[in-house]
């Protein structure tokens, strides 16, 4: 059965359309004025104004290696992160710590530690799996480069992003 939709009956001024047009133009000019005099705040001006202060605590940005209070690179090159990494972005070449070193009992250190930031998916599994609390996801999100090689973070770059991490477990101290 066909349903007849009743059309609204327009009166004379509504059919003239001009009042509606005037009302519409009043609305747009109001928006225009509010924007012009800065009464509407809508957009973040990205490169000058950054999102940083609004970033939540749990934000997962670029992964980075950290040093502890004594300045030691906390990574012991166990390669767990390399194995867990879903897109296989991490490449570690382990090296051996010489016998005379203060932390000789750790035995291994990362000779090279590369994270390919083109592949990284910022999942945070490396941070979760690390038994040494050595790799953390920091809040850096604007990772850019002109070549593929630029986008590979080597050990120096990772340590530079990571910096020093205070208040973590220090299990390799001499007394232990």
């Amino acid at each position, binding site marked *: 059965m066909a349903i007849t939709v009743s059309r609204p009956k327009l009166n004379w001024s509504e059919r003239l359309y001009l009042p509606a*047009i005037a009302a*519409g*133009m009043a*609305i*747009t*000019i109001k*928006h*225009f004025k*509010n*924007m*012009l005099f800065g009464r*509407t705040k*809508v*957009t973040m*001006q990205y490169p000058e104004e950054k999102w940083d202060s609004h970033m939540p605590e749990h934000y997962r940005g670029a992964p980075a290696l950290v040093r502890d209070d004594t300045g030691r690179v906390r990574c012991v090159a166990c390669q767990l992160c390399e194995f867990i990494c879903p897109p296989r972005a991490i490449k570690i070449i382990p090296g051996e710590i010489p016998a005379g070193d203060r932390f000789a009992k750790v035995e291994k250190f990362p000779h090279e530690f590369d994270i390919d930031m083109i592949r990284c998916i910022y999942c945070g599994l490396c941070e979760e799996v690390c038994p040494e609390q050595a790799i953390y996801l920091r809040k850096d999100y604007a990772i850019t480069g002109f070549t593929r090689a630029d986008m590979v973070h080597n050990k120096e770059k990772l340590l530079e992003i990571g910096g020093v991490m205070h208040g973590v477990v220090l299990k390799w101290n001499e007394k232990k």
Partner: protein
Amino acid sequence: MDYFFLTISLVKIVALLAVVLGMMNYTVYAERRISALIQDRLGPNRVGPAGLFQPIADAAKFLLKEDFTPGHVNKFYYWLAPCLAMIPAITTLAVVPFGSTLFGVPMVIADINVGVLFVFAIASLGVYGIVIAGWSSNSKYPFLGGVRSTSQMISYELSLGLAVIPVFLLIGQLRLSEVVRYQIEHGWMIAPFVGDWANPHKWLLAIPMMISFVVFTIAIFAETNRLPFDLPEAETELVGGYHTEYGSMKFGLFFLGEYVAMITGSAIIVTLFLGGWHFPSIPDGSHGWGWGLVNIFIFFSKVAVLLFVFIWVRWTLPRFRYDQLMRLGWVFFFEIALANIFLAAIILAYFPQ
């Protein structure tokens, strides 16, 4: 051969072209900024202070893009169409008086006695650019855009022509500088505040002039393919309408041609109804070249205000449906313009000055 006249004309042509082309570029910028502000955005604000160099960047982009011609088009007409879209819009400006006098030289390139007929004759050629673009592209959407454009232009040119008849009934001449001179002596067509403004006859005549002004302005909207009458391009329905198959500077010519047509249309509205370069209590160019420059500035300021209205309307009103457009043109504006001629004629015949 009058070399003085030739040189002066050439200087005027170059100067007017420079002003209008610069204005066109900044109309595009204004359109982007104003539309953004109306929609609670910011618009282009990166290139130069407040984004003021954006038009230069846009022009550089257009010129440096690959000039691509699709394989399935009719080459000759495909190349001809953008020129046909741009040239009539610029040519029309030749008869518009854009200032009083500067060093005794009248500020109009060609003060011909058929002024407004010339305007209509050339302006209606603009439709060829669109139709030929739509046809030569050999593709469905441009074709539909071209067909729509033809019928739209024909419908609205009628009311465009009829709307100005009251003005010329009153003045008795088609020369545009005469129209301006009349308005200086007797007050602007739609607002006779100057001259013998206390005369009730002037205010009675302002009624048909107001109707003429509204009909003419709306018809100019339709002529320049601006929203709410942008059916030939109709991004949401026809992709890009008649310029779907165009790229780089050929598209740029269509795009900028629309803005030049807007400027031309505004210039004609200003000349016919808003007093041209005249502003109450500002003397004309015979009182010194400074005032001549001020007159030119006043003219282009009035044009700029109208351009703002064009942009404002575009970002307020939705597009008409095709049958609504045709109904509006043939059933309303045509009749209103026709009745308005009779109204003006009766006022002129039976109510003495």
